[in-house]
């Protein structure tokens, strides 16, 4: 006889684990199934784990600001659970958003005002005081080093920045997922690893369970797709789910670089998270006093949509596999080199290549599906790590409400945040929505 659970969660990353945690707290008997060897070992491990509030929509800002409160008191969120690997740490560096043509920063500022996010406006003198090696010339538009104009002398100056004292990063994203797994287990949740889902079964138009690659069947009336870059494949396994989504997801290859901080600048201890649309980069400190340099997906950069299994197996060749490319290394490091002229750029690329589970409008899908009992928390588009604990709670409430009869498509759930005095319309994240053109269509969300 098949084992039976109330809910099966496909994926044990930083979103899958908190959904299990919150459902378990509500009394659901849950099982997370992951094809890798431990929690957080998939695309969560490759996340830059940045915690910042600037999003292009007020709902996006509100959710990030709510998420920040969870990271601030991580032990409390985990209900003081012990993890033999230790606890992940939130590093509050503060977050600089450079005012540039690369960001609709006025919209972000309006959203901050609406949500009540604390911030300061910095002029260029203040930026130099806080980030001494910075060159505050304007380099816009973002270009690639293959373009000779990339090396032209800049003439204009930037117009300052918006600084949020509340912002930073989590030092070990995989560990944070592992922490949440241990917290979920303490509430009765179960996890199995090295187990690949090959089918989502349904009976009489309702979710019935999953089948693993080795033929094992596990039954549950609720299945949640939190498959990360594999989310589109999981949706295709469930009857009518893929077809019922207006917003689709795909796996997008992304490179993040580690470049040593200039001599004499203790970026690890004195540095800030900085989002710099003028050069199409975001940065945060990383161990070894290095700059972690992410890309804000400028239009001039190529986008590589890949098969996630081939990618993780190292197949596909240059620019499509899981190895950094010299071209992108130079693009991201030289762009930061424009802003930090004393940054020395090694010849050999160092960093991380992983995948975004990218939605059509770079805004996630947190929703039910056309198959009763099947839910999804997908399309995180490289910008939802910080929201993971909020999403866990919100998805659990959505699942509970739908199982109790809510027609979420007609009357969307209004989710009341736990810390900030605000609600959000979960319908904003609907699979049925039209593409949201307020989005930045980038990792900024």
């Amino acid at each position, binding site marked *: 006889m098949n084992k039976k659970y109330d809910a099966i969660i496909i994926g044990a990353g930083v979103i899958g684990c908190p959904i299990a945690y919150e459902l378990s707290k509500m009394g659901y008997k849950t099982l997370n199934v992951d094809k890798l060897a431990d929690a957080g070992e998939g695309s969560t491990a490759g996340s830059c784990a940045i915690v910042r509030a600037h999003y292009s929509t007020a709902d996006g800002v509100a959710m990030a600001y709510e998420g920040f409160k969870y990271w601030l008191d991580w032990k409390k969120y985990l209900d003081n659970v012990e993890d033999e690997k230790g606890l992940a740490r939130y590093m509050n560096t503060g977050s600089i958003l450079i005012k540039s043509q690369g960001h609709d920063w006025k919209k972000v500022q309006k959203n901050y005002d609406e949500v009540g996010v604390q911030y300061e406006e910095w002029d260029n003198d203040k930026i130099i005081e806080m980030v001494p090696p910075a060159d505050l010339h304007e380099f816009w538009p973002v270009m690639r080093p293959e373009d000779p104009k990339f*090396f032209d002398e800049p003439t204009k100056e930037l117009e300052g920045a918006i600084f949020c004292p509340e912002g930073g990063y989590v030092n070990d994203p995989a560990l944070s997922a592992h922490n949440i797994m241990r917290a979920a287990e303490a509430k009765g949740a179960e996890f199995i690893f090295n187990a690949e889902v090959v089918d989502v079964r349904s009976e009489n138009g309702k979710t019935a369970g999953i089948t693993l690659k080795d033929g094992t069947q596990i039954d549950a009336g609720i299945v949640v797709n939190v498959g990360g870059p594999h989310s589109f494949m999981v949706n295709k396994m469930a009857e009518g789910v893929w077809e019922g989504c207006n917003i689709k997801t795909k796996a997008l290859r992304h490179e993040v670089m580690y470049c040593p901080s200039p001599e004499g600048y203790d970026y690890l201890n004195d540095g800030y998270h900085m989002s710099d649309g003028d050069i199409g980069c975001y940065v945060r400190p990383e161990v070894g006093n290095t700059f972690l340099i992410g890309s804000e997906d400028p239009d001039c950069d190529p986008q590589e949509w890949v098969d996630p299994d081939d990618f993780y197996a190292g197949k596909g060749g240059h620019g499509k596999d899981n190895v950094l490319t010299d071209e992108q290394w130079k693009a991201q490091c030289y762009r930061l080199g424009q802003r930090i002229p004393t940054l020395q750029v090694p010849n050999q*690329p160092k960093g991380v290549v992983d995948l975004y589970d990218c939605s059509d409008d770079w805004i996630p899908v947190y929703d039910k599906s056309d198959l009763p009992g099947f839910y999804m928390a997908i399309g995180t588009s490289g910008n939802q790590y910080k929201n993971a604990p909020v999403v866990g709670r919100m998805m659990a409430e959505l699942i509970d409400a739908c199982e109790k009869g809510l027609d979420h498509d007609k009357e969307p759930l209004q989710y009341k945040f736990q810390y900030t005095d605000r609600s959000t319309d979960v319908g904003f994240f609907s699979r049925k929505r039209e593409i949201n053109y307020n989005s930045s269509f980038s990792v900024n969300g």
Partner: protein
Amino acid sequence: MQIYVCVKHVPDSAANITIVEKNHIDENLTFLLNPYDEHAVTEAVRIKDSLPDAEIIVVCLGKDDAQKTLRSALAMGADRGVLIESNKNHDSIETAQALKTVIEQDGNPGLIFTGRESIDAEGMQTMFRIGALLDFPVATNVVKLDIEAGRAVVDSALSGGIANTYEMSLPCVIGAGRGLNTPRYPTFPDVVKSKKKSIKKIVFSDLKIESLAAGMNIVELEPLLQEREPKEIKGDAGEVAKKIVRILKEEAKVI
């Protein structure tokens, strides 16, 4: 003084290497400046700092794509580059002949640097062959170099942490080792400056190098698969640190 630095365009050691047709690799991957050659370029720049009239010329035998490697060396401080363009892979005999011919045509070497080895072929022969062809003394795996009174005083590292010190007449050939210096990588302004530096192209076949009876061809390549046996180190942080130090000392023998 003219300082020549012979550099090689090699696959990134982090790349996924695929063997094709038994004796080639799929070259659709990132190539970069051979890491040992970074030490050679850095040392040449260090010497130039105290000899302002010195000129650093980087020379590379390779495909057109190898210009990228020459550009990297120019950004690190070399003054100009020479690419000996060839679509073939050459053995160390032909490589040394080509480098020697071009260096002699180009100028008067006071010093010639190479890396201790290239990370792709790991032949460790080119520097000796250049030295033999030019009748210059050669030291390899050099971890310390002083130029004093027209001589080079070098420490050449052997295994087990031992180094021999040699005095060499100039001109000489220096095979740079890892301990020689910390590579000085370019900043963005260095890269901008290097854009204006010249790279002269010479076609390999125009050098009219006579083929010798002796030569080396790659017959077959095989991936070297190394078995890994992960072990978990248990205990509190202090115990784990002690165990790691013991492993590094007694098993890995790297400290």
